């Protein structure tokens, strides 16, 4: 799959943008805060109508506008062309593929796969459990339609339960009803995360071997509460939940461990090793996505290499190979290679000729 053109109207602070991306490797180059990431974010909506930066719709709609519109043209190889139109308004995300409305975002996942590497990923090893959860959620939402459905349902249920707790009217009957409705998506989310981490681990070790990384990397899911004990945890936690006005247990408190050489990478790997470990995780994520997608996913890489030296950056891009389209952003020009470079300044996109 290849993104050939992205148009955005009233998206973030862009009133209008129309950018030709029709090349195997595209690099959006410019200082921070000019709109590089906004365009990448708009393009990423094709997979699951989900932004890789925020979960709410509100920040995506330009201030004072009723809705944001994004239109992405795609080249699907033997299957021809497609056009995905996305409309985001307060409380609603809608999409049309070639003019036909889609019933749910999950439908788009297998059709228009993208894999996102984002600069937040750098906090993966040492950051909070929330950083790791977001990374895993994003990775799975882009590959597993069932996960996206369960995660959305669980998130909505959790917001409902917390709203009920805050309302001061949280009687047992209403809590019980919500908890029963939550149980199924919660179990789905937890199982998919554990399975995905088990899937990712051998890919991660493969990538580390290639990079000549000594020390065995491992990933283990750490559930806040095992799925079969959640109902009981919610029930017996109601009194304290009412006091704290929040749901203290569930998959929204899960985490996973990144072990390096058998020890916690956050405390036992050097800063340099941690950075490489994050890049290895990105590549492992890509390998897993490749196995699950019918067409090679497009890679959206948001300033993922940071200030890494030239040699390491070159090694990273060559590890990706040439079967995927790459759309990357950065403040430094990419290493040599056939990149289409687009300079970004003040929300304007100028192809470098």
């Amino acid at each position, binding site marked *: 799959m290849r993104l050939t053109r992205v148009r955005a109207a009233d998206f973030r602070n862009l009133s209008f943008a129309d950018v030709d991306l029709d090349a195997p490797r595209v690099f959006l180059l410019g200082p921070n805060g000019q709109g590089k990431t906004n365009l990448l974010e708009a393009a990423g909506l094709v997979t699951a109508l989900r932004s890789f930066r925020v979960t709410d719709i509100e920040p995506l709609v330009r201030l004072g506008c009723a809705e944001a519109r994004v239109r992405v043209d795609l080249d699907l190889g033997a299957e021809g062309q497609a056009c995905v139109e996305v409309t985001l308004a307060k409380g609603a995300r809608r999409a049309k593929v070639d003019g036909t409305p889609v019933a749910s975002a999950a439908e788009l996942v297998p059709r228009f796969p993208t894999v996102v590497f984002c600069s937040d990923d750098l906090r993966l090893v040492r950051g909070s459990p929330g950083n790791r959860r977001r990374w895993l959620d994003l990775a799975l939402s882009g590959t597993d339609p069932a996960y996206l459905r369960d995660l959305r349902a669980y998130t909505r*249920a959790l917001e409902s339960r917390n709203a009920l707790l805050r309302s001061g009217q949280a009687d047992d009957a209403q809590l019980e009803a919500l908890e029963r*409705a939550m149980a199924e998506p919660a179990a789905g989310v937890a199982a998919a995360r554990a399975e995905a981490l088990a899937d990712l681990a051998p890919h991660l070790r493969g990538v580390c071997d290639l990079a000549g990384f000594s020390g065995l990397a491992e990933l283990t899911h750490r559930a806040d509460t095992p799925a079969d004990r959640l109902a009981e945890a919610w029930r017996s936690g109601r009194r304290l939940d009412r006091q704290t006005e929040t749901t203290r247990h569930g998959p929204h408190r899960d985490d996973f461990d990144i072990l390096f050489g058998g020890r916690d990478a956050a405390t036992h790997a050097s800063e340099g090793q941690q950075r490489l470990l994050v890049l290895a995780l990105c590549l492992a994520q890509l390998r897993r996505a490749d196995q699950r997608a019918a067409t090679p996913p497009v890679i959206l890489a948001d300033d993922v290499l940071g200030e890494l030296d030239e040699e390491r950056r070159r090694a990273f891009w060559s590890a990706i190979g040439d079967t995927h389209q790459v759309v990357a952003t950065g403040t430094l020009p990419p290493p040599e290679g056939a990149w289409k470079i687009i300079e970004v300044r003040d929300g304007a996109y100028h192809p470098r000729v």
Partner: protein
Amino acid sequence: MTPAFEKVRQLLRGLPGLGHRSAERLALHLLVERPAKLAPLLEALGAATRAVRRCERCGNLAESPACSVCADSRRDPAVLCVVENVPDLMALERTGVFRGTYHVLHGRLSPINGIGPGELNLARLGERLATEPVAEVVLALGNDIEGEATCHYIRESFLAGRMGTKVTRIGFGLPSGSGLTFADAETLRSSLEGRRDVGG
């Protein structure tokens, strides 16, 4: 924009399904472009305000104490179908296969929007279950989280331990998150016929 126009636009905007553009278009259409349509509309609204009310038994739209379904003696009181709103009831009626009666909740449990049991037509449901010969309750609510939670609530609060009453559920197989109203008649017919037993 004039102040009076702005007032109308604001009020229209508060109605479901109207964003600010469509509210503005509607206000312009009625007040400026086609003012001739306004008088009959106001008259109809006035007449409807006096005539239309909730059916005392089921909550459906009615112009007398009983709605057209409840007034129809051929409808089977043993099968009671719980729906979220009147459009859902109408969608099920269009399938032509359901011969029981309805109960309209006028919403569903939604803590995010501040809708609790007290805001729904639930007390009347309890009374009906206590007094009518109901053998099956069909829970025809959307299959998203709020629909599911509302079903659980009804089962726990009104149907738990009630011997001899079958509880079934439809809403499966419909696009996730969308209500019954958006399903076509054929889909609704097959979900009604294939409704599954979810116990009491």
